[in-house]
């Protein structure tokens, strides 16, 4: 009898070895160990055996069962491993196929430069403020010491709405609005659109952006202005940036200056970006005229201050080497995607 069990056991083991996959293996297991399986059937014979053989036979069948289960488990693991290996092999991909496109949008270059400048001044403790783009003549000219017959009016070529209202030609108008509503100490910058009656060409647009800065407190000096602008230039164009102040004459600033920065492209040696000069004019600045302070309700005997302003498109073009300002407002995807 025992031999017979051994025989079954051997057959079953061989069948399990032969099983090509898990399904076949499970079938073999059912065939021998299932409810109606061969070994299970052998167990049923136990009742018919004499008492003396019962124990031995029972132990032999159970032992066979255990062994077969072990063999089964072993082959099951083997088959699963090989099936997984096969699956992974089959699932290999061509890693050189193109990537799924993640297309994030692009910030407009003018905004990038505007935000960069804003961040520098926020870091220096400046408040960002805004003012209206359609503005009273008073804020754009009169309060800035630019009376009706001043040649600056013609130079700035305003687009007018009526006698008293125009499209602001400079963000300097915001300086006046800030001075009117705030008491010193004032540290503010304003950015935004300005407008001039000039035809669009490579260098000019009728609609562009400026950033304006304003500092007013007791004891603010021209040397403070120089220091602040130099520090701005280093933040903006790197530690090696040098600055140069040329006297100028803004009606609202006295003394006033144009600031040149050493060419950020060639470092000052001279190149096409700086027209060979080694220097690039980047902003206008000056001490706020006492008349302007007084007109806006700030006592010029107690306070002094400085202001500065720059054209954002111009800086953007220089920084990103854009040769035609009109590209900035054309909004071609192939252009925008480069920034």
């Amino acid at each position: 009898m025992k031999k017979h069990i051994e025989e079954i056991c051997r057959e079953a083991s061989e069948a399990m070895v032969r099983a090509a996959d898990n399904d076949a293996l499970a079938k073999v297991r059912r065939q021998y160990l299932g409810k109606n399986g061969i070994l299970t059937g052998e167990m049923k014979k136990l009742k018919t055996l004499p008492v003396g053989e019962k124990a031995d036979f029972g132990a032999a069948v159970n032992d066979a069962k255990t062994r077969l289960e072990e063999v089964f488990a072993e082959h099951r693991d083997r088959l699963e491993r090989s099936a997984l290996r096969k699956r992974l092999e089959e699932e290999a991909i061509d890693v050189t196929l193109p990537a799924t496109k993640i297309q994030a949008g692009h910030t407009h270059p003018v905004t990038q430069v505007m935000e960069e400048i804003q961040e520098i001044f926020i870091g220096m403790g400046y408040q960002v403020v805004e003012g209206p783009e359609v503005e009273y003549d008073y804020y754009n000219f009169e309060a800035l010491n630019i009376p009706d017959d001043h040649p600056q009016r013609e130079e700035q070529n305003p687009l007018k709405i009526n006698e008293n209202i125009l499209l602001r030609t400079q963000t300097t108008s915001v300086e006046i609005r800030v001075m009117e509503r705030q008491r010193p100490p004032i540290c503010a910058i304003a950015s935004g659109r300005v407008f001039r009656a000039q035809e669009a060409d490579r260098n000019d647009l009728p609609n562009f952006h400026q950033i304006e800065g304003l500092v007013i407190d007791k004891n603010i000096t021209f040397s403070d202005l120089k220091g602040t602008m130099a520090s701005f230039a280093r933040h903006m164009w790197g530690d090696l940036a040098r600055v140069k102040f040329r006297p100028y004459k803004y009606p609202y600033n006295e003394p006033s200056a144009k600031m040149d920065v050493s060419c950020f492209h060639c470092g000052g040696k001279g190149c096409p970006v700086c027209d060979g000069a080694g220097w690039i004019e980047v902003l206008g600045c000056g001490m706020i005229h006492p008349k302007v302070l007084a007109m806006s309700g700030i006592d010029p005997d107690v306070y002094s201050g400085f202001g500065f302003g720059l054209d954002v498109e111009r800086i953007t073009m220089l920084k990103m080497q854009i040769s035609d300002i009109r590209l900035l407002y054309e909004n071609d995807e192939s252009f925008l995607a480069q920034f």
Partner: protein
Amino acid sequence: MKITLSWIKNYVPELSVTPQEFADVMTMSGTKVSAWERIDRNLEQIVVGKIRWMMKHPDAENLTIVTVDIGTDRPIQCITAADNIKQGDRVPVALVGGKVDRLHDSEESGSDGVRIQRETIRGMVSEGVLCSVKELGFIRETTDDSPAYEIFVFDEEAEVGADAVKILGLSDVLFTIEPPSARKDCFRVLGLAREVAAVFGLPFRDPAVRFAENEEKIEDYLTVKVRDGVLCPRYCARVIKNVQLGPSPRWMQRMLVSCGIRPVNNLVDITNFVMEEYGQPLLAFDLDSLNGHTLILEHGEDGNKFRTLDGQLRNVGSQTLMLCDSQMPIGIAGIMGGARTKVSESGRNIVLEAACFDGAYIRRMSSQLELTTEISKRFARGLDANYAEDGLNRACQLIEELGCGEIVGGMIDECSTVVGSRRISFTPDWINHLLGTRIPREEMLELLSRLGCEYDPVNNDIITPIGRQDLESEAELAGEISRLYGYDKIPVTIPRVETTRGSLPLKMKIEQIAGNLAEFYGYSQIMTYSFDDPVVFDRLRLPEESPLRDAIRIQNPLSEELSIMRTTSIGHMLSTLGLNAERKHRHFSAYEIANIYIPRDLSRSELPEERTQFTLGAYGRDDFFAMKGIAEEFLRRTGLRDTPVYDPASEKPFLHPGRQANIVYDGQIIGFLGEVHPLVAEDYGILQRVTIAVLDLPEIVSRASFEPHFTGLNRHTRISRDINLLVQEKTPAGNVRRWILDQAGDLLERLELADVYQGEQIGKGLKSMTWHLRFQASDHDITEEEAARSIERILRGLTNHKVVLR
């Protein structure tokens, strides 16, 4: 403005600098020198030659062989086609190896000059070139009196063999100078020379003006009446008898030519010369043709026309200041005269006018007449009335010197509003305080004196020079002192301001959120003009009564296309999408954050309301629902956490009537979105579906909040259930959602529409909706029964709306 170094040196004789030094120092003192060039840059080895003999070329009828003595042992042989020379003439000769600006028979402009070579012309050797004015480099301004094909002939005294360029005064430098517009004094040679003297710390030599008048009285010749002393603050005139016209001397021609002014005759050249030197426009009239020997300055009459010297008939009116004789106008004051009183022959008596007109008036009138002249440009800048008399006298001096006429005694000076010097108290401490410097007061006084300022020690006043009306107060004195002292010598410090906190206003923070979000979803930022074309309203199919049509008009627009301030951001967005479609970009998603301008009142005396719009537009990729998703995410990020309501009755004519909605929050419309009407899209050149969304930022800023707070975490179990409903085709999902929520009770923790299906398996006029429901209780683990009860209630409620379980 252009000026030569030699002209400046006339008044600053001690000036000795290289052109580059001059340019650098002047620029750093505030007078920008934008360019300079040597007038003789292309002239090399040109000497004075004396013609020994001449003979016809044996083989060319129109050529002459000239033997020229050039001060060496051996004379040289030249060949020329010119016929204005004779034996004994002294002429400029460019030697072999030398250089001329260009050859007289070539049209090309010789930017690098032409090298002279030994040549053989029809068998005869030429060893040099006899020069016309063209070879000498001033063809652009050449006068009729010295045509290009004639050889230039020197005066007798020119030394043979000497450097011709030096004798011609061509070893000079031409500077292009851009003074600040407020420095009116620097737009004239004298003022500029004074500035040069101040900057270099050299003495300034004022021209000494002296001339003789005859015994007669001007009043016997001329009467002048000025009827508007505001627009004409000064009118000076002198009478010149028996004027003799002819060419002006070469030195004067050369000075004018080098500054780009064409010499005409002695009288015109004198007026131009004085206009450059003094900045004062001068006009000459033929006195003999003046009716009544009278000049009247008065306003014209509406509807009148006047023919100006350039032959154009111009509309003048009661706004226009006209110069008239006793019967009729003879010129438009300060802008241009007429032909009748032009001085055109010798022997006549003339009036020389030096007037001053209101700058703003001339600017206005000049643009109204669309006529800008050399004199109108000068007046428009705002002239100092003091120049009138000085300039007129200087002209008389030159007239006398050049034998151009006899000066009648006396000058007519009407109005004579003259602004004199100004007194400004001298405050060195305040100035040092403002500049952050410690400049000694003596040094300040020295710097100011260079500008012509005087110091009155008794009153401690600075007395400003005449012609410097821009010096008004201590601030300007500080400006002058600092620039002459040198900006580079002023220390560099950082302001010690009481601490201020850097910050971005809420509105700009929200704009940044909008931008970041849009870019995250693939939208690129665009920038378009604030101007718009009035045609935009028709293109957007807006009805006549649409309030958007009420836009602010610009009085002086650049063109009709840029003539209004936009009241909607849609037009430019669609144009931009159209441009990209035309350029074959398969898809494009764009956003813009910029203002629209809504007028507040009809009279336009108030500033418009500027409303910042967050505009999204896309074709080829994102559809209505994608854009709706961005809009909702934007609202959530700015703290508007409730789900907005979408009202399909938004009635935007430029949108697809079945695919548009107002975005409503708190009962307020805060924006809209929709697919663009196919006809509108086509009009903008886009043949695909286009979706746009506009969020009105002021509405969002006023509701935004950035104070998120933790509301606890519910860890009790959740139960998920899907229900599949049959819904009438026309019933919006938003309604079904509301009906479910009405009945669900507190246990329904999340509700999502998972799928909408319409097809054969569903009855006609119906659609199937699969809703995903998730239940959770706040205080205990929810039971199956509780969820089932809630669903039962929901379904019961839905039957009232003809919605049943599928």
